[in-house]
């Protein structure tokens, strides 16, 4: 197996990773940028080099902002390696990664994890049915393939991305049967105290209102304060109806596709596997790895930035990646502390503005309880098919945390390694025990963080 050495190794070529690479290269640091996707961009700018939709209005100008970031990767100090999945990081800053060519070890003086976010798991009865997928999945299909969901189409959930993706699909000519807004009553009031922060970022607020207006003008049916969401199957076990409660009545809509969304949460798979410190973020209802102001974690020389450090959006990710690169340049003696601080000023200012609106959005769009700790019948672990009721029963029998339920019912032991049940399992247990989620903790994640083939493992020992 080969082994290469760099000043900075970056995992993830989204806005955070790309901005870090650009800034580090400008300081003459040697950079390797690894991403498991075949092209740079991360989630927001996915397929930005070759977006599928011909009409640029469909994805909108915020998407095409990614073009400049990707262009800047063309730099002699940046080695970008697509199709490369990082599955381990050793104590001596050596990354283990696989690509179609085989496994490699990559050593770097400093490591940046910029692995982004994933959509929050949205458990409800029927969420495993074929025909149900996440809003983000539909957006990926639109950006990279120009494929749109089969219709009739219903969208359900909460948050700005739900509205954005509904608008993008509408602009792509897709007929939307209905948008079911599951934001519970009362969240507007909860968000109100955070409004002054939000007002510091008027353009973003304005964009959100614009999306609402766009959907309304399009005449798309919208139900508010939707509860009791349920996907119903036909005889072949495929989605054919969406049932829900709204306006004091139970409704049923025909559907070939149901897209669901309850916000995004940090992808903590690598940071967990490294045993880094994480804290529960009550407003965002998810875990954050602990970092200092420059993104450095509890392990010296290992940094995290962008949405994998805490959800703050694409613009914030870009600024946070820039800050990490400046600090790495200081640590590796390319910049003095004064120079670093001077160069960091614009990024810090923009970052503060992007972060200021978050508490407002987080309070407004916090998922309804029923999605965080679902009813007994709902499957929580899709891989091993474990329901919320089974988890509660295990708590009643004495299980105190996710690693114990894992041992009893295999929840979290399927191929997804807990990515899609970890948050929910911790929350169900905490609620049943009547203790804070922090006390219950999270699955113990071990490396490799992706299932490996025997060939890839054998490659390691060559």
């Amino acid at each position: 197996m080969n082994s290469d050495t760099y000043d900075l190794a970056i995992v993830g070529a989204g806005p955070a990773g790309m901005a870090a690479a650009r800034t580090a290269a400008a300081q003459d640091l040697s950079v390797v940028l690894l991403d498991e996707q075949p092209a740079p961009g991360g989630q927001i700018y996915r397929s930005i080099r070759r977006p599928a939709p011909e009409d640029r209005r469909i994805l909108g100008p915020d998407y095409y902002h990614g073009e400049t970031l990707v262009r800047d990767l063309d730099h002699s100090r940046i080695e970008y390696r697509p199709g490369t999945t990082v599955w381990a990081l050793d104590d001596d800053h050596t990354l283990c990664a696989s690509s179609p060519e085989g496994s490699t070890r990559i050593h770097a003086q400093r490591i940046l994890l910029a692995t982004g976010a994933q959509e929050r798991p949205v458990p409800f009865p029927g969420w495993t049915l074929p025909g149900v997928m996440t809003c983000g999945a539909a957006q990926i299909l639109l950006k990279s393939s120009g494929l749109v969901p089969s219709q009739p189409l219903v969208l359900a959930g909460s948050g700005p991305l739900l509205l954005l993706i509904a608008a993008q699909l509408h602009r792509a000519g897709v007929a939307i049967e209905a948008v079911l807004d599951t934001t519970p009553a009362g969240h507007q009031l909860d968000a109100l105290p955070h409004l002054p922060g939000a007002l510091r970022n008027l353009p973003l607020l304005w964009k959100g209102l614009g999306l609402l207006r766009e959907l309304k003008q399009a005449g798309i049916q919208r139900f508010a304060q939707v509860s009791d969401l349920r996907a119903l199957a036909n005889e072949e076990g495929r989605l054919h109806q969406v049932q829900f409660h709204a306006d004091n009545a139970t409704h049923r809509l025909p559907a070939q596709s149901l897209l669901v969304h309850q916000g995004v949460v940090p992808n903590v798979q690598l940071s967990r596997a490294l045993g880094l410190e994480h804290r529960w973020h009550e407003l965002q209802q998810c875990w954050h790895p602990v970092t200092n102001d420059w993104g450095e974690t509890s392990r010296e020389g290992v940094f995290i930035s962008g949405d994998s450090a805490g959800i703050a959006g694409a613009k914030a990710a870009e600024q946070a990646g820039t800050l990490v690169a400046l600090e790495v340049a200081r640590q590796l003696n390319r910049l003095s502390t004064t120079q670093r601080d001077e160069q960091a000023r614009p990024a810090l200012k923009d970052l503060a503005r992007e972060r200021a609106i978050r508490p407002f959005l987080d309070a407004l769009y916090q998922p309804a309880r029923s999605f965080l700790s679902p009813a007994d019948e709902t499957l929580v672990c899709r891989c091993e098919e474990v329901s919320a009721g089974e988890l509660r029963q295990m708590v009643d029998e004495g299980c105190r945390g996710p690693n114990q339920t894992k041992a009893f019912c295999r929840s979290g032991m399927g191929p997804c390694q807990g990515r899609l049940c970890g948050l929910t399992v911790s929350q169900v247990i905490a609620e049943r025990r009547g203790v804070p989620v922090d006390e219950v903790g999270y699955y113990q994640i071990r490396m490799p963080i992706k299932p490996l083939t025997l060939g890839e493992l054998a490659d390691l020992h060559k």
Partner: protein
Amino acid sequence: MPNASEFPRIETGAAEWVEVEVDGQPIQVRAGDSAAAAVLAAGLVPSRSTPVNNSPRAPYCMMGVCFECLLEIDGTENVQGCMTEVRPGMQIRRQQGARHAEPVTHEDRQS
């Protein structure tokens, strides 16, 4: 075999097209599409059934998180379809029930 679950494609402008087979049926897809996208374009849904209860499933996240897109690709089982780009002539099949060869996970490595 048009069926209601096929994902239609919007105007995508100039692109290379690649022919693959989805459960034995030839279909043209865009170069750069993932195998999971090809399966959705072909309407092969459900695209797998679970090892535990044989429940029907289909791609869910399209970004490598959920492993619901496991497919048999060119004879290899348990391939993550959303993370695999199509190649000309690729043979994509539904993955049925129990995995015959388990993917190696950390749990297996420990035992």
